[in-house]
């Protein structure tokens, strides 16, 4: 996989979640994603940006345009925080589980809306979630 371009957007306030959605939308449009694919990746980014803010205490999202070996283009989003981390990732991924005020759909929902999903988290160090949607 080849990295074509990269841009980072901070996630510090609820307004930043809107800015992330808009930045992701712009990239998806630029890549020629159809409306449904745009909506899926924008919605996934909104869920993950909110997790970064609410559970990670804020962080950053990296928006990357990538290209596969077969020249297929995709949008990869990497959310990183230095928050308390997730002690039990499997539990955090299960629908309906939440330690906060939300619905517990964020991680599992974002995973379902993406083609590829990776999560790394260590208690006391932070969390990194990466999703990828191919065109």
């Amino acid at each position, binding site marked *: 996989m080849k990295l074509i371009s990269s841009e980072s957007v901070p996630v510090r306030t609820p307004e930043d979640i809107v800015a992330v959605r*808009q930045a992701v939308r712009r990239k998806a449009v630029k890549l020629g994603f159809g409306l449904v694919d745009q*909506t899926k990746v924008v919605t996934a980014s909104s869920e993950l940006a909110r997790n970064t803010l609410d559970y990670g205490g804020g962080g950053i999202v990296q928006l990357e345009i990538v290209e596969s070996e077969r020249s297929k283009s995709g949008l990869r989003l990497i959310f990183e925080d230095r928050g308390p981390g997730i002690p039990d990732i499997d539990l955090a991924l299960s629908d309906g589980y939440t330690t906060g005020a939300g619905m517990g*759909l964020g991680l599992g929902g974002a995973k379902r809306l993406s083609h590829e999903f990776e999560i790394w988290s260590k208690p006391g160090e932070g969390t990194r979630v990466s999703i990828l949607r191919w065109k």
Partner: protein
Amino acid sequence: MGGFLLVTIQVDMHDRLALTLQDDLTSMVVRHRARGVLIDISALEMVDSFIGRMLGTIASMATLLDAITVVVGMQPSVAITLVELGLPLKGIRTALDVEKGMAALQTALAENEDGGDEAHQQ
């Protein structure tokens, strides 16, 4: 008898704004003795779990205040995404557009009143 409140969401709302709308709308149901709330989301390009929850909360609060909520104008791409996200918005009445939403509100209110009368007769 109260009328209907019509709310059109025109902007990409941040979370605090969504909560403000939820609270304002609930107060307005009481202030205007509204029997129905119509929420037009046709301008929304995305509904995530937060906005979805807000819509559900508005509907629940309105029900407690004896009003019926109908969400209208959801874009097909938003509906597809919501189901995949795992949030099918169960319990929320929807209609394709404002006109159909108004008709749905009127029908639902008429049925409610009929139901009420029957209950009294029994």
